[in-house]
């Protein structure tokens, strides 16, 4: 499986470290429901069969975190973008 790194180009997935679900947002730690929100953030996953937005870290290349849109049933990749824009 080749991940289209926006900077490096298509690279084998083995160059990347996988983190998973990229739709999650770190909750506000000061919010009154922080405990519940962090439980959901750290542990609960939609885990869809189909389109999935996910974090891959290009450990063997540019060391950027890349948000990849990939289908979990076909492994087909629809797109990829860097976590942060240009500096």
């Amino acid at each position, binding site marked *: 499986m*080749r991940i289209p790194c926006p900077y490096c180009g298509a690279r084998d*997935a083995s160059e990347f470290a996988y983190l998973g679900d990229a739709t999650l947002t770190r909750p506000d*730690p000061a919010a009154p429901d922080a405990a519940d929100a*962090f439980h959901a*953030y*750290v542990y609960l996953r939609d885990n869809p069969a189909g389109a999935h937005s996910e974090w891959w870290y290009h450990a063997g290349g540019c*060391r*950027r975190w890349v948000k990849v849109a990939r289908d979990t049933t076909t492994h087909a990749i629809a797109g990829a973008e*860097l976590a942060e824009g240009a500096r």
Partner: protein
Amino acid sequence: MSRLPSSGLVDRSRRLNFRFDGKSYHGFSGDTLASALLANQVRLVGRSFKYHRPRGILSAGPEEPNALVELRSGSRREPNTRATVAELYDGLDAASQNRWPSLALDALSLNGLVAPFLGAGFYYKTFMWPATFWESVYEPAIRRAAGLGRAATSADPDHYEKAFAFCDVLVIGAGPAGLMAALAAGRAGARVILADEDFLAGGRLNSEAVTVGGEPGHVFAAQAMAELASLPNVRIMTRTTVFGVYDDEYGAVERVSDHLPTPAPFQPRQRLWKIAARRAILCAGATERPIVFGGNDRPGVMLAGSSRSYANRYGVATGKSVACFTNNDSAWSSAFEMKAAGVNVTTLIDIRREVAPALAARAKALGIAVLTDTQVTGTSGQPIGGALTGLSLRTGGRSDRLAADTLAMSGGWSPSLHLTCHHGGKPVWNEGLAAFVPGRTPPGLSVAGAARGTYGLGDILAEGARQGTDAASALGFAAALPDLPATEDTPAGIAAFWHVQGSKGPAFVDQQNDVTAKDLGIAYKEGFRAVELMKRYTTLGMATDQGRTSNVNGLAIMAELTGASIMETGTTIFRPPYTPVSLGVLGGHHRAKDFRPTRLTPTHQWAASLGAVFVETGPWLRAQYFPKAGETDWLTTVNREVKAVRASVGLIDVSTFGKIDLQGPDVGAFLDRVYINTFSTLAVGKARYGVMLREDGLVMDDGTTARLAPEHYVMTTTTANAAKVFQHLEFCLQVLWPELDVTLASVSEQWAQIAIAGPRSRDVLARVVDAGVDVSNEGLPFMGAIERTVMGGVKARLFRLSFSGELGYEIAVPARQGEALARALMAAGEEFGITPYGIEALGVMRIEKGHVSGNELSGQTSAGDLGFGKMASTKKDYIGRVMAARPGIADPERLSFVGFKPVDPGQRLRAGAHFLTIGAPADMAHDQGYMTSVAHSPHLGHWIGLGLLKNGPARIGERVRAYDPVRGGDFEVEVCAPAFIDPNGERLRG
């Protein structure tokens, strides 16, 4: 010899000697082992898996279920090698397998006598009485009888490697479709890889007496190959099997040296290719199917097309008296061509009532008797070896016999669509072809020729050309459809037929696994009717040939039993690999010492020169200890090293720690968010110990971070977690808080770092720093961190840190200066008896001091567990803070960090021992924790330990039982504070 006078593509001027089962024979260059055996009239080649029935050669290709041999010997022995694809070389040595004492007289062929009891599912219904007999009696006997060949006797001496290739169009198979596809795409300028598993490109063109473009088929193939070879954008890979379709790449194995006695020097035996192709065209041809009838497994019963191939390609007559048995036209062509090549084909037996008049006329002209509406119901053979001697026939209600030493059978053809299934595509049944054709194909892969169910040669050439053109065009190349060479049409009429009902003797569906039509009947009766259940219950299709010649027949027979259609019954899914792939090639050169890279510290050679013993620490080799002459056990050495440090001074390379430079105005704020404690307030020139958590609230790593300048910090991580921490920090910066202006740079490789420790360490340091550098207690106080020069202008980072509990420093210099620094420190410390020490002594001292390390940073411990609870700031948020407050993490009853000493000082503590309350039973309910780290403390003169104990800090002074049954340990230890030396830290501040 049964070599035909003139036909064949073997080079009769190149005679090759070989041995089979110890007997010498010869063949020719261009032979396979199978063709050479047939040429020498060797018919009995192997024994079947279950009943040990005598078996011969069924096919001429990778589908072979029977002719499996052990090729080569000793450390190069290759079991289960298909003789039909093993290229003959001079000196080849092969042996039959799965027989004892000999191939002709195999003791376990007695299994055949009890075959009526050994049907499908037999094992599941028996061997249960008495219960203990399974492992002791039944299973060992079954295991000995099972299996086929034997593994090599020792480590594989050959080299393997891996390589990457890229192309626009990958053409898989160099038969007529593949050649045309490659020509079309290659001429258009596309980068083409043409891969073929055979050593001679051409596919069926080499095996059939056809004319293409006015030339014999094999000449056309050779000409096409010559043109392709002349194109710089085309890469030809023969002896290369594309075995799997993965995401965005194809896996292939090139058998570089398998046709040689041993690989040439510096050549690999095989090479794994990972091919990224924008388009691929599968042109893998088709595989002929046997017909299921009684006694269809005798040596001498073989596939008709294969028999033809032996005649046309190898110049070998498969028998002296050949009959054909079929349901389709291709076998008629096979018969005609064999006859033309000089083989004595006597009879064509066809289950069909009528065949095309042209075929019948041709048979008549060639003098081949024709029996239509006739089935073979049984076979007879020689008493020893079982080779075929005659056939029982049934025409309508009439029975007859026919003498024959070869039966060339054909039940039709199955497209070799294996690769189309590798992304989950399911083949689709085509009633007209009586075959499965490809269903959904993997992205970018199309199928041409017989692999797609196109059987006429002219159609195949056209389809290959079209798909090659289309693939190149789709990629933007200006491709023109090549002129199609004229060829004759090959007849392909077929009447679906699978199984001769009421035949005599076992009728084999899967010859290698000895699955009979009757076994399928048992599976049917017992409800194992879905195809996956049927296969698993009977083992149909699970042998080394992966059911190439058996799956469709099995499905069809099950469909007959259930009355359902074949499509309703199921389909045949093929998983990678297409043909079996050696484990050696999949590993490449990453074996033995090269399994994984070895990382060397900057001072490795220096340490080696002092006789250091090294130890694998993750990817690193680190000096474990430095034995001196006369020290015979490691503990003596380590005790000496520890004492030397505590008494005077020692040095150790600590370069393996992760080192990360952080720069930018927001570094302080950032560190506050990733560490539980505060770093924004750290003064320039000072370092602080920090603990970071994962977001789930448990400890990720610890280390010291120093502030070198207002906007420049340097962090150290543990050796083990260096990459993980860096990745985590980048996640925080890129994903969580992109607004922070912080940049990271790993400087782990840039700096060699050496720790010196002991009361004389300042004296030693003072002698290596450059003039004017103040390393006094004022100039470089405890936890100080400064950038200065050493050894005459060498940039250095000086830290006053201590892992050992002694006065200590860490000195970082550019990596190439590391060895010079080590030598300079040795020279500077000579008068103090400076002692190099290894990570064992380092470990002893950190345990004496009660510092946590890898064994405590297990990923299962919280900051509170490790005694860092008070370090955690309550004034800020940080990663892991919220989840660390969960009751299960914050519970004081959790296992917490304390020290241990033996009540009897003579006892040796062991890490991994569990703690039990004294007097409590030794069971899980009374498990109180475990010992994480132990050391023999030369300072105290006895063993000491660190560990995690339920509610540990509240139990100091209590005695618990250290229970270590796996090493026979069971004695009392006393819980103590986890600092055995200088608990107030006076030594390191002095």
